[in-house]
């Protein structure tokens, strides 16, 4: 339905305060949502990292910051090691990664690994977003 609440709650979850108002209004630099809602009305589509089996972003990463966890399958970027070259962005066929220009590192979905349910899924009012385990 194009409410963009997934973006709101993704940004909040990846902020310092994890407080929806403070995260959007006060924190500088502002956190970034790692999910993006595309609209071609009446169609809307939430795009986030697909945690690919053969992750081009991991293979192409110039520093080794981007890694796929062999246990969980989650692809994460270590912001301490990311050099902000955006090579991962160039090779992501989903366009699912974003430049965090304020911090000079890439921002991507980490499936909210610290939560039971990712923030975008938990707050989707229409249950359009679901979490599916596709581990082979």
């Amino acid at each position, binding site marked *: 339905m194009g409410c963009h609440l997934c973006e709101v709650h993704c940004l909040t979850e990846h902020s310092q305060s994890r407080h929806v108002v403070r995260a959007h209004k006060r924190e500088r630099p502002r956190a970034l949502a790692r999910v993006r809602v*595309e609209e071609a009305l009446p169609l809307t589509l939430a795009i986030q990292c697909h945690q690919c089996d053969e992750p081009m972003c991991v293979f192409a990463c110039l520093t080794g910051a981007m890694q796929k966890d062999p246990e969980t399958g989650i692809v994460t970027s270590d912001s301490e090691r990311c050099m902000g070259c955006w090579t991962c962005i160039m090779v992501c066929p989903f366009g699912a990664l974003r430049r965090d220009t304020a911090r000079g590192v890439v921002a991507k979905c980490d499936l909210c690994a610290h939560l039971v349910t990712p923030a975008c899924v938990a707050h989707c009012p229409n249950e359009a977003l679901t979490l599916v385990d596709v581990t082979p």
Partner: protein
Amino acid sequence: MTRYLIIGNSSGGVGAAEAIREIDRRGPLTIVSEEPYPAYSRPLIARYLAGETSIERMAYRRPEFYHQNDIGLVLGQRLVRLDLESRHTELDDGRLLPYDRLLLAVGGAPIVPPVEGLHEHEFFTFATLDDARRLAARVHSGQRAVVVGGGLIGLSVTEALVKLGVHVTIVELAPQILGRALDAAAASMVLRAVEEAGVRVLTSRTVVRVLGGASGADVRAVELDDGTALPCDLLIIAIGVRPRTEAMAGTAIAVQRGIIVDRHMATSCPDVYACGDVAEAYDFVAGGNRVTPIWPNAYLGGRIAGRNMAGVDTVYSGGTAMNSLHAFGLSIMSAGTVDPPPGEPAYETLLRDERAKGTYRKIILLGGRVVGMIFAGEVDRAGIVFGLMRNGTPVDAFAERLLADDLGLLSLPAELWQQMVRA
């Protein structure tokens, strides 16, 4: 058990080792490196020179990587001889290492042009951490440097030197900088940023002679082909790399510019594979073998080599020239054919030139498929176009939409994006 030997410890070697260990946890695996360090991120050497990172933070894999994966690491040793008959390699110190499967991932060497007086004087190349350390030990604020070569390496060393307060002049033989990565328009955006940072850029010029002081190896100036002398304290040669194929001379391994490999990354000799800057591997834009000395292709090629070495038949889908340039405050991505060959009407160019606003997008089509791209400015979803290019997807019906600000998966036909998100 299969014994694996990998010569080269950069992205190609690591990519192969990781792929092998996904399949075979037990076969003895050795990596040999000429450099004295565990794998490090080569592209970070400019940040190191600029004092923005440390050797520890440049590590390409965590310190426990070799141990955890049961990889024997031999550092500071060069491959000097290959014996394909008895399946041994000989290292610098005379050591013989046997193998059942061998990967040659020895990389490239900086090209040093024949310039009068060059070897009598101190000059720097910029390919390894040791190159950066040697330069870091000599550089100080207020010096004048000449960087020969206005490609990606030349620009990255220039950016670091500028941060250190060095006055840099780039001397580029071609009429434009970044001629291999960008077209003239995108290169002009970079040129402007580089010049605004205080760098002088001389194009269509070359250095013909190096002039020294009264004594020692110190450089005093370089003389250009138009006769002018450029005074300088530091001279950096950054005109590119060539495949390091010396150790293959006299063997049966087929070499053209680089070691020729098939779509399995196998050389012409049984059980010998190659990848990375030393290899001439499949380029999906060229439709044939090419040397494309870039980091991601080395890793991908290494990964495919590793899978095949471990016995899992895997075909290399190919790499192509691609770069994400992030320098002097600009983000520019380019891949494939960025300038259609002149007089070839089969190519079609889609262009959005808003350079005044910092945006430039160019997509080159051949037969209705993307064969080249340049994205400058907003680059966040350029990967969608790169993906279409990599997959050879016919884009005729929607190509114009790829230039729009709202480029996204919904720019693609429904059956295409639906297939992607379901996969």
